């Protein structure tokens, strides 16, 4: 039996095509992946991300505990600020990539991948048991209690405030800068709103108690309708994040891949002191990695690259050098794009490569990330 979010009935009512995504019955699309993708790039799209996990860590020792298990430096955060970070095992392999928000001085909200909720909760529980200050840390997996929405697109700041009837409070668009989080009342319940997303566009993510999530979904759809807001599914979410080269756990990241290999070194604060995976990551930083994540574009009109297709070197002595981890037809660019791992010595931008598609070699070029940039 697939798990369902609080918005399952809303998706059915909108005529969504539903698919199994990591054990969740989720909308793939409503009006079509291309249509929804372009709506997010030009106006606004609303995604159900209720399947994602929420883990709350509280207590006086919580900053110290989290800084020992996460790669980024949590001490850089002020209250109501968040950061992208990773959680690694002893080998520096990614257990998950996530957002951590400092809601209050000693209260942190972790937004984790749906497919990793149990793995993350188990790992954090195990790490906490070995943490000397454990009596001053309270760890709660609240994933089942919350729904979540991602409102994404260049026009979202124009109507986000219309979703919350509190004339006394400052406009959210003005109050929230990138990666900041705040609370708002909705139907008498407190919800979190942050300015972040997974599409490369401006936007907001809302974490709300499951009971009010359907009402919030309807309210946002209604407020955004005059601005061209469309409900958008996981299909568009995937093409949007691939265009801006954001990793997806299970594709670019897994327990045998480090943040440095994935090109996420900027989120690994080696100088902050000891943390899980640090010694391996420090050595990789000094000596280099054996694989590197690159972005590529098809050089001519071709079938779209897909995950797991082999990547070949170009030229007379061509040989397999890696595999595609994410690939699709880019709705914004109109050509095939993808991400994949290759040896570092073959990862230079503008290098010609070939993608093997049904036994045939399709020419492509390694390009700088991101594949798509606004404007």
């Amino acid at each position, binding site marked *: 039996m697939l798990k369902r979010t609080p918005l399952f009935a809303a998706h059915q009512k909108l005529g969504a*095509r539903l698919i199994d995504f990591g054990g969740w019955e989720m909308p*793939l699309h409503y009006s*079509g*992946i291309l249509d929804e993708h372009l709506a997010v790039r030009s106006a606004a799209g609303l995604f159900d991300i209720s399947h994602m996990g929420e883990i709350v860590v509280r207590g006086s020792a919580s900053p110290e505990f989290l800084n020992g298990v996460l790669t980024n430096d949590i001490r850089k955060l002020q209250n109501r600020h968040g950061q992208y970070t990773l959680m690694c095992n002893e080998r520096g392999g990614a257990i998950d990539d996530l957002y951590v928000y400092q809601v209050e001085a000693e209260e942190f909200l972790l937004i984790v991948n749906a497919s990793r909720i149990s793995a993350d909760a188990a790992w954090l529980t195990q790490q906490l048991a070995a943490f000397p200050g454990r009596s001053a840390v309270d760890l709660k997996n609240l994933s089942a209690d919350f729904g979540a929405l991602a409102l994404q697109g260049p026009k979202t700041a124009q109507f986000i405030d219309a979703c919350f009837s509190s004339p006394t409070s400052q406009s959210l668009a003005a109050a929230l800068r990138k990666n900041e989080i705040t609370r708002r009342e909705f139907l008498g319940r407190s919800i979190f709103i942050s300015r972040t997303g997974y599409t490369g566009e401006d936007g907001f993510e809302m974490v709300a108690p499951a009971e009010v999530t359907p009402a919030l979904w309807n309210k946002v759809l209604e407020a955004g309708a005059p601005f061209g807001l469309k409900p958008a599914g996981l299909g568009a979410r995937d093409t949007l994040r691939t265009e801006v080269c954001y990793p997806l756990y299970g594709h670019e990241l897994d327990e045998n891949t480090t943040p440095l290999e994935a090109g996420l070194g900027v989120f690994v604060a080696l100088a902050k002191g000891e943390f899980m995976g640090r010694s391996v990551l420090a050595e990789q930083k000094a000596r280099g990695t054996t694989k590197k994540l690159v972005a590529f574009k098809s050089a001519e009109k071709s*079938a*779209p690259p*897909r995950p797991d297709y082999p990547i070949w070197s170009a030229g007379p002595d061509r040989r397999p050098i890696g595999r595609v981890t994410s690939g*699709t*037809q880019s709705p914004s660019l109109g050509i095939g794009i993808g991400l994949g791992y290759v040896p570092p010595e073959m990862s230079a931008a503008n290098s010609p490569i070939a993608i093997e598609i049904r036994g045939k070699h399709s020419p492509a070029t390694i390009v700088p990330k991101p594949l798509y940039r606004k404007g």
Partner: protein
Amino acid sequence: MSASIPPDVKHAKTHEWVRVRDGLATVGISDHAQHELTDVVFVELPAVGRALLAGAACAVVESVKTASDIYSPVSGEVTAVNQQLLQHPELVNSDPYGAGWFFQVKLSRPAELDALLNPADYSREIGA
């Protein structure tokens, strides 16, 4: 749904259609199939001259999300392919029974047509 099925085509259960004129069969995919696939972004067609067997995979249609095999509903030699689809794969969505055709076949076993579904039976098959 059934209103959009032309009266002069027969369908395979795998959602390809065939229209026969003077022993020459034109093949494409149904309106139902294009709707299920969503936005078609690429079509790979068989080579002209290739001998096709009914029920065998002979083309590929790709949407943003997935690649799907196309099975020839009839046996015979490919006499023409729709070159327009290479530049305009979206014709499969906008005009599945017309400009979105895939290829033409010179029938080698015309009796195979009898096993294909008429418009009413195909409508029932897709629950329309």
